[in-house]
């Protein structure tokens, strides 16, 4: 179906209710009045020719240009194309109708919008605070333009009310925010009767650092370094997504060599994280041998990163317009050779892992995320692909050099810990192959496109990158004087966290660390 057909489908169903239909940098955008949003969004979600998954919902404070807030909805239709919906709230209007009763995936987004902008989703079934913990004073909405980035916050008393299950023999187990291992802070509240988990509530945003607000202080070039620090383990994925959004907005063409190298670095990041995860998942099933081997392989790859670029996390590489350093071919060849050894090493190890019956016993049927639940939440990435959700931005919205590289997207159906492990193991091999292809076909030429033109205030762009966890999204809007007006960051973890609450049901608490590890979501990337 071509792009205009998508708009036509919506127009046919809603006629005069569609106030505008436009294409912005190739993305079809439909505008409607706020009261029509739930019906139109629901159509985009359910109509058999669209079947959109809500991938992102966010707001922008348009002041000082316009005294209004705009709310955007991004749908990923079946097969990958995007369709956007938008509405505006004028003047003192602070209410918009919630779509959560019809589209489950909106539930955290609408709570986030309320916390950050003070805009209330009417009809939302759960309007507790999400990002703002209870001690934040009333009326603190950091992304409003009249809230200053360095505002010193007071404190108030308050208590968060967890969902409760009552009944004989039901008790609650609180875990966190500080955990036993070296992990990020988050709170998990289990309700159990006997062994099985009846309910889990995840409470996050302990690490909220105000990233999106900080972006608004920066120029386009400065933003890269902040994007690298959204989630350290995905430094390259985030900075790449940010740069692509900025490049698309500024109309900068990235030279081919930089595109190939970007693919290469993104795969390197995927490799060290996936290999580390394989070891850590096995370790949480008490198979420490795999952790030791994977730990040393991961370390080796990070040392390769370091020797190539001077950063174990591939930081300082991306810049708006391309890359900041070029690599001589002898260094790249040496890295390729080292990676080949690691691949053989890893193949040996995966045979050992999958031949171990007692390990398999722990992994199979543990923490099943059903396909239906995953779809309702808009889950994608490694976790989605283990639950039969066939999405991969590298294939569906090719970026960097992926349109010229060949790779398979591994899909598993069972949605258990083992399936998530398998997806990672398969992707390690695919990444190794991608790196080989990128090196074989690496074009010569410049690696950056210098000049940064100034964009028109109010212009925006959207970009997606398949990071090692899944789909990273950045929305950027230009402000005055070459500054960023708004930067919406979405790490895949934000989407997948609520789904974990369903994957643990019926499992026992001692299996939670294993299930959690098989998801391995970012807390920093969620909390921002």
């Amino acid at each position, binding site marked *: 179906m071509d792009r205009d057909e998508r708009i036509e489908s919506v127009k046919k169903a809603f006629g005069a209710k569609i106030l505008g239909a436009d294409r912005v940098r190739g993305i079809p955008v439909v505008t409607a009045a706020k009261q029509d949003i739930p019906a139109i969004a629901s159509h985009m979600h359910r109509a058999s020719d669209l079947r959109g998954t809500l991938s992102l919902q966010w707001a922008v404070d348009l002041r000082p240009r316009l005294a209004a807030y705009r709310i955007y909805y991004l749908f990923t239709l079946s097969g990958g194309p995007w369709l956007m919906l938008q509405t505006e709230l004028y003047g003192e209007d602070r209410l918009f109708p919630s779509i959560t009763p019809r589209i489950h995936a909106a539930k955290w987004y609408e709570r986030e919008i309320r916390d950050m902008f003070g805009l209330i989703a009417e009809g939302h079934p759960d309007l507790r605070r999400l990002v703002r913990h209870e*001690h934040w004073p009333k009326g603190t909405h950091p992304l409003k333009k009249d809230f200053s980035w360095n505002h010193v916050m007071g404190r108030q008393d308050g208590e968060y009310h967890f969902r409760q299950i009552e009944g004989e023999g039901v008790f609650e187990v609180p875990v966190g925010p500080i955990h036993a291992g070296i992990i990020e802070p988050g709170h998990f509240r289990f309700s159990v009767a006997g062994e099985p988990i009846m309910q889990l509530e995840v409470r996050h945003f*302990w*690490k909220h650092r105000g990233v999106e607000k900080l972006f608004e202080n920066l120029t386009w070039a400065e933003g890269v370094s902040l994007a690298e620090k959204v989630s350290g383990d995905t430094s390259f994925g985030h900075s790449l997504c940010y740069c692509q959004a900025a490049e698309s907005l500024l109309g900068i063409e990235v030279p081919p060599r930089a595109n190939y190298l970007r693919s290469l670095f993104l795969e390197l990041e995927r490799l060290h994280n996936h290999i580390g995860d394989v070891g850590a998942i096995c370790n949480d099933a008490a198979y420490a041998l795999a952790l030791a081997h994977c730990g*040393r392989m991961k*370390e080796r790859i990070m040392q390769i990163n370091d020797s190539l670029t001077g950063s174990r996390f591939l*930081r300082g590489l991306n810049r708006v317009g391309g890359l900041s350093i070029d690599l001589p071919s002898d260094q790249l060849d040496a890295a390729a050779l080292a990676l080949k050894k690691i691949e053989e090493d890893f193949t040996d190890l995966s045979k050992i892992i999958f031949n171990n019956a007692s390990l398999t016993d722990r992994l199979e049927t543990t923490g099943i995320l059903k396909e239906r639940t995953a779809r309702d939440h808009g889950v994608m990435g490694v976790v989605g692909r283990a639950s039969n959700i066939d999405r991969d931005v590298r294939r569906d919205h090719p970026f960097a050099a992926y349109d010229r590289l060949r790779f398979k997207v591994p899909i598993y159906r069972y949605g258990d810990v083992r399936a998530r492990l398998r997806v990672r193991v398969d992707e390690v091999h695919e990444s190794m192959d991608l790196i080989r292809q990128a090196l074989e076909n690496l074009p010569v030429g410049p690696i950056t496109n210098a000049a940064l033109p100034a964009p028109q205030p109010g212009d925006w762009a959207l970009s997606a990158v398949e990071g090692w966890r899944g789909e990273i999204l950045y929305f950027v809007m230009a402000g005055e004087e070459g500054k960023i007006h708004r930067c919406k960051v979405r790490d895949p973890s934000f989407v997948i966290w609520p789904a974990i609450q369903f994957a643990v049901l019926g499992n026992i608490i001692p299996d939670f660390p294993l299930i959690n590890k098989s998801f391995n979501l970012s807390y920093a990337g969620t909390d921002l």
Partner: protein
Amino acid sequence: MFRIIQKSLKTGIVTGNYPAPTKSERPVPDAVRKKASVFGRSLAIREVDTGSCNGCEMEMNALMNPVYDAERFGIHIAASPRHADALVVTGPVTVNMEKALKDVHAATPDPKLVIALGDCACDCGIFKGSYAVTGPVERHIPVDVKISGCPPRPSEILNALKKLQGRKP
């Protein structure tokens, strides 16, 4: 079984296979050295993340892999602050983590050391001034050692810890 043994033999020993750190750590002040001396040659560490980007966590985790194997220097990670000799704190201390940090510090038995790890913990790094950040760490609890870097390499962290223990680098 045969495969596992074969794998171990083929791999050999990897401990110590890392480039020596190029950055030299600041010398440990005498007072801190004295405070650390009661722990002798062992150090139980509780890691507390107060809003890091998780880069510092990854490098702390790397310390425990077979390549750095910090355990060979008696450094291990305690599961609870009650078992810890030292707190390693990462991140700029967010508004939401401030109380948890103070609680953990209070729960750690005396004598104790506090190590601020990474630029964020030392001076809030890129997050300095944000409405959501109340750090740095030393604003809330006394800090004995600062290890800078974004993130510091594991070899640098290990060197700093060894220095604290009074070992040769």
